[in-house]
Structures are given as C-alpha cells and as structure tokens.
C-alpha cells in the first residue's frame, strides 16, 4: 500500500522546477527507486512525474559530445549497438541495472539523482568526463558529475532545480572503456563494489588519457585519481598490473558490514581494476578510428 501523495504531471521543465520548489516535491522519473521507497513506507506528500516532458528523453550529439536527456532509459543504452561498441563502460553499466523490466523504466537521470554509491550508470559516466546540465527558473547551469554529489542520497540540486541532461565527451581513436560490477547474483542485484576505467592510447601505445571511478567504495560514486596519474604518459608495456591494482584501491574507503568486509571489497577492487584495465586496453587497441557520429553510423540501432 502506497502512502498518500499528490501527483503532478508537468509538461515543461519550467513547470517541473516551479512545482518542485512550491511543494518541495519528489521528482519521479522511472520510479524504480521512488516507488520502492514508498512501498517501504517512505512518505513523499508530493510526487512530480516528469515522464511527460518529451525533451528530457532525447539523445543529441555534436562534434565533441553526446548529450543524454535525463529520462534516457537504461534499456535504450543497452539496446544500442553503438554504445556497446564505442562507449562500452556505459553499456556495461546500463545493461546490468536491475532486470530487463527495471531497465525499461529506470533512467540515467533517476540513477544519478537517487545518488546511491552503488548506482551502475554513474561510475561509467564519470570516465567519459560527464557534465550535468541542471535547469532552474534562472536558466541552465553545468556541474561536473564528479561534483554533483555531496553525500549518500544527497546532490547539489537546489529546491527549484532538476537535472536536465548529462553530457559526455566523445572518445578519440584508440580509446576503450570498461565497467566491472561485482554482485552476488547475475541480475537483480546491487553492486557490492564496482570499478570503471577509460584509456586513450597514442600511436606508440602510450596512454595519453585515463579516467577511473569507483562504485560502492565510498559514500558516493567517486572519481579515482591514483590509477589515472599512474597510467597517464605511461606506455602499456610499462604497466605493472599489481601496482595498478594497489593504486586503484588507494582512495577506496569501503565499509565493513554484514554484507561483506571492507577487506574483501578491497581485494575485489584490486583484482577488478586489473581486469577492467585489460578489457579497456583490448577495446582501445581494436578502436582504430574515433567513434563516428551516431547519425553517420549505419547498420546500428541509433536513437
């Protein structure tokens, strides 16, 4: 039984922002977190269902970036061969959220705004230097995804702000990425821990850019700088995997709980860092050219 609530269904972003401020309302995108909370007894007196705002569900691109409307569904990414091939970490993450049914409902924006450390899409988005566009009556502002969280379940969004879209940087040639999720089950599970990485190579196999992030290893999904610093400027033949593993867990601060010990999560992250790197590397070596524009790509499922 759901607690009582008033439901608003705005048709524009401005209307949604105004309603949110007026009622201190809870934004509902896919509902895969909000409705579960409500069934658990959590009271949200005002629900603002933004599913009717069409412009939030588009994916657009320019020369350097791809922008996902906040309502982009995990299933949309999962079903796209384009994202699977070129933005693999994001595909890895989105295709492992919950179950098929949940991925049909759950959105990127919802996953981000729910702001739990185990969110499967946030870590991967971080390795593509994602930037959030936040809308309010005063206009839009941009906030790097890494700066979007101020604590577990807490974001920088003001009372009249909603997340409008997420923009990622397009990859160059010889780039590859990977997200590894560790869960006890093969579906319908939260990440006990997870790790994402992206590397870009030059023609001499030197890593010119690297991005890492951690999932369920701190109060929020965090960027993971030590392995980035270690890899940047290093030739792939000089990469010591054991060293990389150690650096990848340097900033990790997982908790010990009945779910698992911190020691175990650290051991997992160490191993998964090596695997994520190797996976991203093999993908980078295969990527001879930069990803095409989505609109130029033929034979793929383009949105």
């Amino acid at each position, binding site marked *: 039984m759901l607690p009582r609530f008033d439901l608003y269904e705005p048709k524009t972003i401005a209307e949604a922002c105004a309603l949110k401020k007026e009622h201190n309302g809870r934004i509902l995108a896919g509902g895969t977190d909000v409705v579960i909370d409500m069934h*658990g007894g959590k009271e949200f007196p005002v629900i603002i269902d933004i599913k009717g705002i069409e412009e939030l569900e588009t994916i657009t691109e320019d020369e350097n970036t791809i922008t996902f409307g906040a309502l982009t569904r995990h299933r949309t990414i999962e079903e796209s061969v384009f994202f699977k091939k070129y933005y693999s970490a994001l595909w890895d993450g989105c295709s492992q959220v919950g179950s098929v049914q949940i991925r049909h409902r759950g959105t990127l924006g919802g996953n981000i705004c729910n702001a739990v450390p185990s969110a499967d899409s946030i870590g991967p988005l971080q390795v593509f230097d994602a930037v959030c566009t936040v809308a309010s009556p005063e206009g839009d502002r941009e906030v790097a995804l890494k700066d979007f969280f101020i604590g577990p379940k807490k974001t920088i969004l003001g009372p009249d702000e909603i997340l409008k879209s997420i923009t990622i940087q397009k990859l160059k040639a010889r780039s590859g990425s990977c997200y590894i999720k560790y869960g006890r*089950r*093969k579906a*319908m599970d939260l990440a006990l821990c997870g790790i994402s990485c992206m590397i870009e190579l030059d023609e001499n196999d030197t890593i010119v850019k690297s991005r890492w992030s951690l999932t369920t290893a701190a109060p929020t999904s965090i960027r993971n700088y030590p392995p980035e610093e270690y890899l940047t400027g290093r030739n792939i033949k000089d990469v010591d995997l054991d060293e990389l593993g150690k650096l990848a867990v340097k900033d990790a601060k997982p908790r010990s709980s*009945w779910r698992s010990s911190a020691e*175990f999560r650290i051991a997992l992250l160490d*191993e998964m860092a090596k695997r994520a790197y190797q996976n991203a590397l093999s993908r980078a070596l295969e990527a001879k050219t930069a990803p095409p524009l989505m609109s130029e790509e033929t034979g793929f499922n383009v949105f």
Partner: protein
Amino acid sequence: MSISPIIGTTVLRKDGKDKVTGHAKYGADWNISGQLYGAIFHSPVPHAKILKIDTTKAKAYPGVRCVITGADIGNARFGGFIADQPFLAIGKVRYKGEPVAAIAADTERIAKEALKLIEFEYEELPVVDSIEDAISCKGLVNETWKDYTIFGMAHPVEGTNIMDRFELINGDIEEGFKQADVIVENEFRCGMLQHTVMEPHSAIGDVTDDEITIYAPAQSPFSTRSMLHHALGYPLNKIRIICTEIGGGFGSKAEPKLEMLVAVLSKAARRPVKLVYTRDEEFNATFTRASVLYKIKTGATKDGKLCAQKVQVWWDTGAYGGFGPRVNYNAGYASNGPYFIPNAYTDSYCMVTNHSLGSAYRGFGVSEAAQAYEMQMDEVAKALNMDPVEFRLKNVLRDGSVSVTGETMKSVGVAKCLEAASKNLGWSEMPERWVDEDGKLHGKGIACFIKISGTPSTTSCTVRMNEDGTLLINSASREMGQGVRTVLTQFASSVTGISVDRIMVAQTDTSITPYDKTTTSSRSTFHSGNAVLEASHELVRQVTELVAKKWKCNFEDVHLDPETGMFTCKTDDSLSLDINKIGKSGILKEERPIIAVGKYGTKDIFDPVDEKTHASKRPTIMWMMGAQAAEVAIDMKTGKVEVVHISAAHDVGKAINPLGCIQQVEGGLSMGYGHALLEEMIYENGHLKNGNMVDYKVPTFMDSDFKSSIELVEVAHPEGPYGAKGIGEPVVAPTGAAIANAVSAALGRRIHSIPIKPEKIMFGEEGEYASKI
C-alpha cells in the same frame, strides 16, 4: 495387468492456464462482504518484558473498529506439537516481529495509520541470539515449559532452552568405533533460510460466538482446523477452512499463522477481517528454515565399510516450537544417510532462541542432514583414499539391508541414482580437480540422501460423476505448484478411461472436502493417489451397474477397458459405449448419482517407534532417495563459484507425469543452488539485517541457467500407486551438499558451512562454522 498409458504420459498442468492468465485467485485476491482490514503491531525488539501496551489512541482513531492485545485473548496458545505460541504476546515478546497487538479497521490505510498510535513500553532482556547462547542457558526464552500443552512429539527439558530432544540408537556405538581403522570428526553448519514464496501469507476470518470460517492459502487446512479447535475451544464441526490457491508453499503455509490472528481479531470485531502480510512481515514474522549445527564422528574400516557414526545436532528453532519437533524427527531419521551403519547414535535438539520461528521448509530438515552427512562422507572417503562415488556405493542401503532403525529395506533405488547421477556428469572421465585455461579451479562433487514421509497418516477423497459424465475429485491435497491436481486426474483417468480434460479437482473446503492430514512430506501423490485409485475403482463399479442395467445384461459380463474408455458386453458384441459419452447416453438420467469414496491410511503398516531408541521395523510408509552430482568452476581472485553442471537422478518409483517430475527437479536445483551459494538470513543481536529481496539473495533465472541433466529412476514401491514415490521435497535434499563437495574438491580444502560466500572461498571460513560448545 497393463497400466493405462495416461500413467507415465506428460499431461498439461491443470492449474497452468489459470495461473499464467492471472485468473487464479490467491489468498489476497479474496474479499468477502462486510470485511474489515487487519494490521498487526509487531514487536520491535527480540526479547523483552512487556510493561505496558496502550491502545487508547489507536482505538479512538476514526474508522478503527477494534484493537486487541494478548490480554484480550486470555492464555490461549497454539502449536502443532507444543502449544507455546500465544496469538498475541503475553507478558513477554520473544522475537522481533512477534505480534503484540492487532487492529481491525474500515480500510487498510486506517488500520496501518492506527498502528502508529499504539504505545508499547517494554524492558529489554538479554538476547538468545545463537545456538551457543541457547545451550549456555544464560537467558531462558521460556522460564518454564510446564504451562504448555504438549501433543506427543515435543520433549522439552525444564530449566533449559531445549524444546525437543530426539535420539536414535542402533547397535553399540563405543564398540563400533573400536572396530574402526579411521575415525573422522567434523562440524558443519547450514544458514537460516526464508521460503520467499511469491504469494505472501494472508487470511480472512469470519468468526461469530458459534462458528469460525477462515479463507486462506493453507497447505494443511485440517491441521489448522484442529489447532483452532484446541486453542479456542470451538467444536471441530463449527470450524471451516476454505482454501484459496496457494502461490508457493514450500512449508511456509504448512502451519497456521495469519489464520490464528484473523480468528481472534474477527471474533473481537464481530465482523469478517482480512489480513495480508507485506514482504517485510514475511521476513520478520512468519517462518524460516532453522539454522543448524552438526557434529559428526564417523568410523570406517580400511576396506571402506562404515562401522560407527555419532551425530549431534542443534537446531535454532527460534522463539516458538512450530513444526520444529517434526523437523527434528524427520531429520533425525535421515541423520545417518542412506547407509548401512551397524552402530549409530543420533542426539538432536531443538533449541529455542530469540529468532523468527524455524519450522517446516521443503524437506523438514532432511536437506540440512544431507548437507552434513554428505560432506562428512567425502571426508571419510578421503581418509580412506577412496573415490567418493565408489565409497558411497560400497555403503549404501540396498534391498534387504537393515537400516539404522532395524528395518529390512525394500524398493531401494539409491545405488541406481548414484550410478546415474555420476555417469551423466561424466564423473569417471573427470579428475577430482583441475584448472581451466582461464585459471578457474574445477571440481566435482556427489551427494545422495534418504528421506521419510510422515507416518502414520491418513487421507480420503470422493470422486463423483457429474450429469454430463465428467468427474469431480474432492481431495484436500493442495495444489501449490507441485502438480498434485494434475496427477490426481491421471489416476482417476487410468481407472475410468475418462480423459483427463473431463476430470476436475475441486478447491478444498474442510466442511465439504474429505479429510486429509496435510499437504507436506511429499506424500500427496502416494497417499491421495492411492485414495483416488480406490475411489475410481468403486466409481467404475457403480457406472458398470448402470450400463448393465441399460443393456439388460449381467454386471459380470460388462467390461470397461480403461485404456480406451469403452464398455463392452461379453455376451453381445453389438453393445459398446464410450465412457466419455456416458452423459449423453441417458444412462445416468434419474438414476442414483454416481459417487465414490477413496480412503488410504498407513496406521497398520507403521511399526510404532520405540520412544527412546526410535527403532522401528517400518518407521515410514515410503523412503525417498536420490543423488546429484555437480561440477563447479571457481574464480579464486573474486571468490565466485560457478555451477557448470548438475546431474540429478531421483527414484520416483513411477513417474506419473514425467514433465511434472522434471519440473520439480529443475526447481529444486535452482533452490538448492540458492541454499549452497546465496541464501542466508543474517541476524545481529536478534535483529534481522537482510529482510528484503535485495539483500536476501534468492537466485534469479540468470543464476539458475546452468546445465542440468535429469534422470528419473523408477524402482517401483510395492504400496505406491503404480509404484510411485514422492518427489516434491527430495529434489532439493542433495543439491547443496553436491555443490559444497564439488567446491571442496576444487579448493582442495573442506567447506564446512553453507551458504558458501565468496569471502569463504578467498579468506577461509574459520570462525564461521566451528562451534563454541
């Protein structure tokens, strides 16, 4: 005599279409006129003295019709074996989630709002949070056992937390160990489990001063009726249980819970009351499979023969008895496995703790027993340097073997099952352990088991012919996914020749349906099958009389061929009639209706057990046996265990509905996978930490998608219907042990406890299983 081809033919499930189209009406789908909605105030703490329950504000809340506490009910208590459980807490609360107060209101929302207005004051007591805590008697969950009525099977020990003790004594254990060349001692544990049935518990009670009517998805309506009778004093014939469809039972609906609450709530409210539990209430306030500690000491001679075994068992039965003593009894009988052991001793205890009730769960303790003794058998085989399959085949019971209770065994299929399960896995072509190209460790494991079916017990049914010649079976064997409804129509069809699509099974209602003890213990195909066969023969006799009358010939000359359904006359070749067209034939018109009764009971077959040693030459009507073999692959760097292949072979006696049997095995493998690797209720100081479907890891379809090979072995049971034996619970009995043995083989070290979490693989399990007693 040849058997009708409908026996052994896969038949479309009788309950399938209604369930997949959403038409089936489960407990929560029912509503009755004038009903109120119930809500329960559960104890927020595991162990406390009740100081005050103030319901004044809740009672004053608009729309609330009635609020009751334990004080309103008096000292009535209930239980299957020991009546220790109050309807609502009296004096103390003994587990977090225990019902303390109950509300009936005009709507569900009002009832739940009013819950927040109940003021509950208590003084916390030390929590008995483990088997060790319970044994130490530092805190007593029950100060005395003397106040409770005992129905035979529970044997509590005053001044302790022991609610039941079961001993099994065979031969001379000390002498037996003297003969041994190797002696192996180990401790094993199984974690606490939830049934996590899809359909939560629910009930509607409609109670007056004179009569009780309950609507519920009950597995055992007659036992529920009996418990209500004993606890509340209503005459049996004034208590009616109307059964709804069951959305998953697995033992969780074997004993009443909400039925008891709505009974007292409806009586107080003087209106019908409906109560449906949430998933949170399911986890905290229903039933569990108890966690258990096994200590086993086994002796064997150097030629590989078992000569002595001592098994000590402690169950964490939770706060109240429930079906705990029955678990203790069934698992106690199974505790030495399907082996010939001349000297055996089992000493097994139900310990009460401040946890949720450890009660009936698919197998009644038999899976846990198999988990322990089959891990132990591998260790004995290892000490003897023997192959695990070879060692088992050398020691398993065979026709003519004398069991640990003194029974001369017959219809024993376990050796065949071991041979089939190992062969289908490719056992003899595999090394014990190896490493694959990805660096994963592989291992193989085997496990077999033995299980009793509760004996003595009785059942009955009626089979009646409708005016159109179709049949209606009235049986209290409850369909809960196991396929009994389909199988009963096959039995009726096999005798009458009436096609299964012209045979229905009615829903169960204790005021209409003939008596059946319970739908548990994998007994329905066997017991109700026999009853339906008896009724069907009688029904054929009655129909034959009418046919003979119509044809104006002698009864003895009219013959029904059950294969074709054709009546023929020995004396007149021109006469024939298809029984499937008998409705239109006019034969039935205005004749005395066709109705037949079938009965089956095992009291005369049962050899009453010795109270001390539990020796019996026939402790059960039916032994069930089988074996499963598993191959696993382990990633040592992540601790992940992948089940590559499970090969299952179960002796079903005779597969009545083969696909139904295979579906049972498939479901069991998935469930057993969960037991072995994922599922566990985690308590910390009496508080359940993972009572939700995210943190309590039930396997998904994705997890269950491993290769399985299933072989149905058919060693006919002399008293079974067409030789059939039970298959519902046995399928899950050896899975956990087979997986654990495969994991142990792969690791090269023994795993002692389930679930086998990745951390145990990577860091070991020391401290997690070893007892402190």
